[in-house]
């Protein structure tokens, strides 16, 4: 026992480290594996106990059945429209706002700052009821038709942005002063400076914020749930949950295949962009 050398000790602790890491990856990854494996199982195989970790005869028709059990093509279209619309507006609002806060003079800048901070403190969840009433009756009183169950109603309440504005302002302020001054000397106006100088230099932070925004919009659930009323307006998250409400636990294989429709696009985005997303989120937390 006594002659367990330092090298061996180190090896032992490293082995323990790897073991723990594998364990963590397994525990976190297992539910996702379970989803993938069940999506290829026959109903009979689902109800065998103990379960198979790998389906004996992959049943790919689960995906076809899932696709036909609800208008998933339409759900995809709706999710893409509302995600791109909402995130696009958020990115534009954040970029313009950040430029204004960082580089433009204005006598009441502090007031604007305070308004954005206040907005940051009101979560969307506590405004769903009045917003629903707004699109239902206020809009109806104004223009003679209700906007409940429309794309603009899904998108607009989430189109303004405070967090992204602050995040981008911070990064704009860190851009090299000389380059901006040089643009001014060359006679570039603010629009030109924003487009040709600031945007290219700030691309990383814009991409990061854009990704965070896309993830949030794609997964958004509560607001699309209350503001959409017909099946053809549902987004993927709402559509899959109402499919589940209907089908329940009768056909787990098909239901799992359907959840993959929702999750898959984001998994792909994540595999290519995880660096950006993780770095963006940690920058927000640690730099302060």
């Amino acid at each position, binding site marked *: 026992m006594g002659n367990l050398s330092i090298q061996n000790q180190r090896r032992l602790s490293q082995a323990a480290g790897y073991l723990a890491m594998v364990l963590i990856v397994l525990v976190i*990854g297992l539910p996702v594996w379970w989803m993938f494996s069940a999506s290829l199982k026959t109903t009979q195989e689902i109800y065998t106990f103990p379960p198979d970790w790998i389906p004996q005869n992959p049943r790919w028709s689960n995906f076809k059945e899932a696709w036909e059990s609800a208008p998933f093509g339409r759900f995809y279209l709706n999710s893409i429209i509302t995600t791109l619309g909402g995130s696009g507006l958020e990115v534009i609002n954040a970029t*313009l706002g950040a430029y204004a806060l960082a580089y433009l003079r204005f006598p009441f800048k502090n007031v*604007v700052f305070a308004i954005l901070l206040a907005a940051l403190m009101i979560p969307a969840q506590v405004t769903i009821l009045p917003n629903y009433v707004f699109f239902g009756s206020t809009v109806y009183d104004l223009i003679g038709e209700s906007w409940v169950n429309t794309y603009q109603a899904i998108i607009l309440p989430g189109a303004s942005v405070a967090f992204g504005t602050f995040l981008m302002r911070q990064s704009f302020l860190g851009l090299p002063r000389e380059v901006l001054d040089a643009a001014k000397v060359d006679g570039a106006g603010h629009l030109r400076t924003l487009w040709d100088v600031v945007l290219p230099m700030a691309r990383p932070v814009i991409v990061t914020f854009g990704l965070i925004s896309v993830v949030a919009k794609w997964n958004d659930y509560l607001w699309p749930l209350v503001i959409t009323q017909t099946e053809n307006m549902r987004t993927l998250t709402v559509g899959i949950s109402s499919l589940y409400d209907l089908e329940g636990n009768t056909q787990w294989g098909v239901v799992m295949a359907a959840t993959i429709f929702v999750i898959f696009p984001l998994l792909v985005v994540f595999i290519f962009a995880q660096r950006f997303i993780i770095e963006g989120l940690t920058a927000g937390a640690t730099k302060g």
Partner: protein
Amino acid sequence: MVSTARGRDVTPYRGQAVVQAESRRRRLDTRKEWLLFILFMLPNIVLFGLFTFWPMIENIRLSTQRWDMISPIRLDVGLTNYRYLLRDDTFHQVLLNTAYFTVAAVGLSLLLGLIVALLLNQPLKLRNGARAVVFAPTLLSGAAIGIVWSYIFDPRYGLVAQGLSWFNVSSPDWLNRPEWSMPAIIIVYVWKNLGFAAVIFLAGLQAIPKDLYDAARVDGANIWWRFRSVTLPMLSPITFFLLITSILNTFQAFDIIRVMTQGGPVDATNTLIYYVYEQGFIDFNAGRSAAASLVLFVLMMIVTLVQLRFAEERVHYG
């Protein structure tokens, strides 16, 4: 107000008219800049006004009314809705559930997140891959994940039942038993969100200067003591940030609950945010929903104010 120091310097060398023209041009420039500022800010501020600030005022008004969301008549009932919530057993249960869920979910996410971060801070190969796996669930739709976990918790054919059978324990009917449904929701929530805490903690760990550990080692501190005297204090600002963010996030956790238990069984997983939804959009009590949403808002406001009080310089990052 436009005549700057530089403008005055120039005066002796130029004629009066030139100076006046110059200062007029500058004033015009300033005006243009103000106008541009307003143009850039306007869409954002107008949208916030319409869909964030105005609804809060509407909420206050709605909370003093009785209205079924359909009829043209809204009855003014003063503080009746608040009095109802104050006395209602279900609402008391909802507040307790919210506290239970928040404390357990936040505590476990942070604790497990820290443990994972400490591990991934070791010089292990493939740790970036492991970090990606741990973080991935954070980005997945809560609605879809909730459905997957409903299957995992299936008392007869689910993954959890399988795991428990190795220890000869039979699985409880997680989602249909009042005492088990909240733990099930918490497990899912922690599984989904501990990666966020882990990634943030990891960034914090990597920012701790190495010489602090060297100094502690010279002083003869063992592993545990180095953790106590260097790691924990150096992580405290990040821990605080995570604590606040996680509390605010759990207050808003809706999709998992809606999909897995719909607040049940017998209100065992009915939290404030779910209650707001249920009262408004299932039971059509707009007044009670609005009153409950103001309670939720005040609770979140208190948490945010605590944050502002203790970390003023961090405000700009949200």
